[in-house]
């Protein structure tokens, strides 16, 4: 057999083995894997244990300001670590329902390797479903669930000069990057905008002092007093802007505006890296779901809801010649359940507005309240 054929054969073997195991599990425990069958049993000994996610014990909940907390967690051994700048999904059980939100890891890789702890810095979103609840309910020694770390907002290995632009809690991944540096990696500047108090000023200033370890200059800007980012600010503070690698993390508006200004100053877009925070879709607040963009991800189709007409997602899908499964068309039988991966909908039967994260929704009674992505 040629090498290529050998590889094909062993790959096919692997797939067959997987399929056989899957069938066997379905037969024996009516579940895709044995561990998923045992999950509720294991949870009696290990609270919040999950087949797919990692458990983490809450070591401490520290209030950094009126609306920011720092959560110290010890992930279980199943958690594989992270690269500075990455984020993870935090899942908590809120009144019986699992809800998930993404947070960047704010502590350093060194810290995790040494102690096994990580820190998440969480800002309370007004009228948020999860973060206000986190503030009131997380307690020491309770457990939460974590996904593995993910994200591509990580430091490059180069010694090129770097500029970090942070807005509000956007400092989180950047702080992780700065504190995780193991060697002198060229000139670095941090431009940190905040409306209220800046976070981690002590820690960052201490880092700035360590001239032996890092060549870092801090610029704290209070947007209330000094205003927001301007092109002039960038050009005058950093004359060598075109040679820098630029890392931006903040609320959506800030990122877009920063990128626009940078490109105006001739910075090559390939040198700009960004992490958007709070990427919740723009909520459409008018009476009916005016002009929401709906993506049917599996079919690769896009459509828009019309402004004056209240169409359900089932009707919108059928209009696009998709044929989702349906039943009673009145919200009772749940046959039309589909996964909404992004966006917010309203259930016209109950009047309830959905969560912003991935959720199962009934197509026949859901109307879009924002741009959506549906797995259909």
């Amino acid at each position, binding site marked *: 057999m040629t090498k290529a054929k050998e590889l094909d054969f062993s790959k096919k073997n692997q797939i067959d083995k997987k399929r056989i195991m899957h069938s066997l599990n379905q037969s024996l425990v009516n579940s895709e894997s044995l561990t998923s069958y045992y999950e509720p049993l294991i949870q009696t000994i290990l609270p919040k244990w999950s087949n797919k996610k990692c458990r983490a014990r809450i070591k401490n909940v520290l209030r950094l300001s009126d609306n920011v907390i720092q959560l110290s967690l010890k992930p279980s051994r199943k958690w594989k670590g992270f690269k500075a700048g990455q984020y993870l999904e935090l899942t908590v059980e809120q009144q019986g329902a699992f809800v998930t939100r993404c947070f960047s890891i704010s502590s350093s890789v060194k810290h995790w390797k040494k102690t096994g702890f990580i820190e998440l810095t969480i800002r309370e979103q007004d009228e948020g479903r999860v973060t206000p609840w986190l503030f009131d309910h997380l307690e020491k020694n309770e457990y939460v669930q974590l996904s593995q770390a993910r994200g591509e907002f990580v430091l490059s290995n180069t010694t090129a000069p770097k500029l970090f632009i942070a807005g509000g809690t956007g400092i989180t991944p950047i702080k992780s990057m700065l504190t995780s540096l193991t060697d002198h990696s060229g000139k670095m500047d941090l431009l940190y905008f905040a409306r209220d108090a800046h976070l981690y000023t002590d820690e960052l200033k201490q880092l700035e002092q360590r001239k032996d370890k890092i060549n870092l200059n801090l610029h704290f800007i209070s947007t209330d007093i000094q205003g927001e980012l301007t092109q002039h600010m960038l050009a005058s503070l950093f004359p060598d802007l075109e040679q820098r690698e630029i890392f931006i993390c903040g609320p959506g508006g800030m990122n877009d505006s920063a990128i626009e200004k940078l490109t105006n100053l001739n910075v090559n877009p390939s040198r700009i890296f960004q992490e958007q925070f709070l990427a919740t879709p723009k909520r459409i607040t008018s009476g009916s779901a005016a002009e929401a963009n709906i993506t049917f991800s599996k079919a690769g189709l896009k459509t828009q809801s019309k402004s004056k007409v209240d169409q359900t997602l089932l009707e919108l899908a059928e209009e696009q010649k998709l044929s989702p499964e349906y*039943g009673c068309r009145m919200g009772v039988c749940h*046959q039309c359940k589909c996964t909404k991966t992004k966006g917010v909908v309203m259930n016209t039967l109950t009047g309830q507005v959905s969560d912003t994260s991935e959720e199962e929704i009934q197509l026949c009674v859901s109307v879009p309240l924002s741009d959506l992505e549906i797995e259909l």
Partner: protein
Amino acid sequence: MSKTSNTLPNNEPLTAPKLSEESYQGLEQELNELREKTLAKVGQVDADYIRKIIRIERWSGIAGRIVMVLGFFNPLFWIAGVLLLALSKILNNMEVGHNVLHGQYDWMNDPYINSKKFDWNILGDTNSWKHYHNYEHHTYTNIIGKDRDFGYGLLRLSNDIPWRFKNLWQIFTYAALSILFEIGIAYHELAGDRVFTKKKKKDRKSRLPAEQLKKDFYSKAGKQLFKDYVFFPLISGPMFIPVLIGNFIANLIRNVWTSTIIFCGHFTDDIHTFKEEDCQNETKGQWYYRQMLGSSNLEGKKWFHIMTGHLSCQVEHHLFPDIPAHRYVDMAPEVQRIAKKYGIPYNTGKFGRQYFTVIKRILKYSLPQKKADLPASLSAS
């Protein structure tokens, strides 16, 4: 309406008198309010409850299979093992399976305890059941010709179903169906779609092409049969035959129990049937009305309700199929109050008594009834 007979004196089926427009609206509003009030309470308590039941179901299943093998030392272990396994299968079918698959716990966002992922421990394909039960049975409840659960295409249980020769021995058909209930449940959609026969029904829309339906049917049935009649007997070494028989009996116990409870839900006396043309363009209030008239409850203690998967509260289940079933018991007094207010009969009774009327019904409609001439006022419903 007479309470003792389930037809009018001239053998016409019990059809429901129409309520006033106002009454339908009032009924709709009050039941919607009850639903919202209950949904607002759904939360941690329900999540903890269903996980507790699932744990009991799984522990008793594991224990049952192990203890059965210990029958090697003493036959009493074998009996205990069979009973534990039967308990597990019953809980899986009723309180866990039926309710999770109705979507009652989908709000939990649990990766496995939801109506899309859960696969239950019976012969039938889960998606097939969800389609004909959640959709067809709950939408067309008791509409003759549309609700195929009304008799399962095998039994004549009402006077508006034409009598056939095979109905003469239907009490025996019922006994066989009861013993082999999980096969009946597995086969129900394929029977309706006439997958294995030559003549297809013209106006019936199939969920999937016949080939796929057959494939899903055989696949699930094969896996279940492998588990109970090949795998577990084989790994029990010398206890091969006792384990095989034990598994068979556990399945049997589950089949008989579930079919009995399910039959008590719609086939007691004083059950109303409906004509398709009368249910076109139903309002929610009219839908609620039909659900109440087509269902019956069973009275009992808490453990009894759990073992029936709360199908003992069939009326509440048909009114609110996607509310966590253990809440039906608390909702029942309010439903009864509303029923009384609008003059709607609320059918309930002790288990023995209700089941007795089911048997009576099966026997009664084994024979053709003579249709007397009708006065004009009673012919329209």
